[in-house]
């Protein structure tokens, strides 16, 4: 991979510790994410990767440590505030709105950008209608980008797994996020679907300049895509660095790579 120039630090994670009751899920984790990079978090099952994402977007509140996003160290954050700050995510276990179509799911991703009020929407004339059309245009761009034109009107509950993952990515993209958190976007996919998803991740990063935090189990994918990698193991941070360096790290080989494959 060619040498990429990384931008300023946008997200700083400092000494985060998270417990559920007596169980320590994250133990003194610190790393940063730079503007425009693809930052991976890897580790065996139960290492605390998803929990880390949940801390970043305010779903879990850590007992210790601080998160600094865009120069501002945050206080206790409400879940919906992450979206307002430009953080979007997808879930390990797809969390789509099952009863709604692909189109509506992605349109819902733009909820924060819609300014018309309820009365205007009830009348559906003037501003409300203009907004619907304008956002529909943007959503259609995303649909084209993800190549899901054929399933626009289908309720997502009826779509195959791989397609649902794509729609969920579309919903996250609809918010035009600055920071995109992807929790195992390729899990359970066949090779072809994985390749498509890799391409989308790279294109999002490249074309829109979106900073991406990626959790992924497929080492090939991680090594190919990432600028830098954090390795977690049972809540502990084992390593942090560029893929090549992490790959050679003895602690990582022992704890993770050796065990998993």
């Amino acid at each position: 991979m060619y040498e990429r120039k990384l931008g300023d630090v946008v997200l700083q994670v400092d000494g985060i510790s998270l417990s559920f009751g007596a169980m320590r899920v994250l133990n003194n984790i610190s790393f940063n994410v730079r503007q425009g990079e693809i930052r991976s978090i890897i580790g065996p099952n139960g290492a605390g990767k998803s929990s880390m994402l949940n801390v970043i977007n305010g779903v879990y509140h850590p007992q210790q440590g601080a998160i600094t996003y865009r120069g501002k160290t945050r206080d206790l954050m409400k879940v919906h505030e992450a979206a307002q700050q430009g953080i979007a995510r997808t879930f390990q276990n797809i969390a789509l709105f099952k009863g709604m179509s692909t189109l509506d799911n992605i349109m819902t991703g733009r909820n924060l950008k819609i300014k018309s009020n309820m009365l205007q929407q009830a009348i559906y004339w003037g501003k409300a209608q203009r907004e619907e059309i304008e956002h529909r245009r943007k959503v259609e761009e995303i649909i084209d980008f993800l190549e899901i034109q054929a399933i626009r009107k289908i309720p997502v509950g009826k779509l195959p797994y791989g397609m649902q993952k794509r729609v969920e990515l579309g919903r996250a993209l609809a918010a035009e996020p600055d920071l995109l958190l992807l929790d195992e976007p390729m899990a359970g996919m066949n090779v072809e679907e994985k390749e498509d998803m890799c391409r989308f991740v790279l294109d999002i990063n490249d074309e829109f300049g979106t900073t991406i935090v990626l959790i992924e189990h497929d080492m090939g994918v991680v090594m190919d895509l990432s600028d830098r990698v954090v390795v977690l193991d049972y809540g502990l941070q084992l390593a942090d660095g560029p893929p090549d360096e992490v790959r050679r790290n003895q602690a990582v080989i022992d704890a993770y790579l050796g065990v998993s494959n």
Partner: protein
Amino acid sequence: MLYREAGEFKSTYQADQAILTIRQDRWFMWALLAVAFVLIPLVSSEYWLGTIMLPFLILALAALGLNVLTGYAGQLSLGTGGFMATGAFAAYKLATAFPELNILIVILMSGAITAGVGLLFGLPSLRIKGFYLAVATLASQFFLIWMFNKFGWFTNYSASGVISAPPMAVFGDNFVTGPYATAEAKYLFTLTLVVLFALMTKNLVRSNIGREWMAVRDMDIAAEIIGIKMLPTKLKAFAYSSFLCGIAGALWAFVYTGSVEPLAFDVNRSFQILFMIIIGGLGSIMGAFLGSAFIVLLPIFLSNAPHWVGLNIPVDLISHIEFMVFGALIIFFLIVEPHGLARLWQLLKEKLRLWPFPY
């Protein structure tokens, strides 16, 4: 291949976002409106207009209200009767305290007052969900009816606890309440309001707020993560739903029955409306109408059908049969087809779209 979308290419998003995108559906809707506004008043007897069409329309409006809350926003409510009562009593207090107010204003204001009450009773929805929320709304149902019975102020201290609508006209002497109102006037007045509110509701559910409601219904945590605030979104559903239920209650008391006691809006009413949306279709505008038509017409059908085939079934047996049919249907729809009659209609259309070729 009479009914199809093939050959209809939409060149603008506006066309693709229209309420009815298939040409035949639009014709059907216009025809239906023509029938409702012109044909039915022309050919129907006073009895049909006054005792079948009016309750059908008004209950459909209440079902529409409940469907917003339960079908779209996913908040199960058993307080519909209480909200209808609120609308009825608000209309009564307004109409008697300010006799110069136009009936339209009275009805809209009753809806607004009920929206406020619904907002209040919707507050617990932030903390509790599903079954527990249903119990909380049931409590509000009992509380509201108790309140209207308990405090004479609501009935202007009428000894019987019954309220009667004063004669009121939309304009001139077009009375829609009281003894001078004709069945046609009442019907057309109610129909106009119900059609307008149905259109408004359709607009809401195809806009951002509707998507937010459905997002909360389908996966609340994901909704929050994409920036939807739980409390305002749920409260808007409670307020708008109660607004419609309040208007339905006011129409029921003023235009349909003319005089009413709180008991007309007891918990049985709440269940009746809930059954309407289960049978008609959760999360569907048309479902509210189909469900209401079904529940209003089924008893009439059941009590007349035996005569048509020359059978003589005692009345109490018929009402038992009615219960059994309802029970069976509700179980059927809950288990087999949660989207109700509206979904069956949809399926029929999908079949029709392919007909006569199966593929």
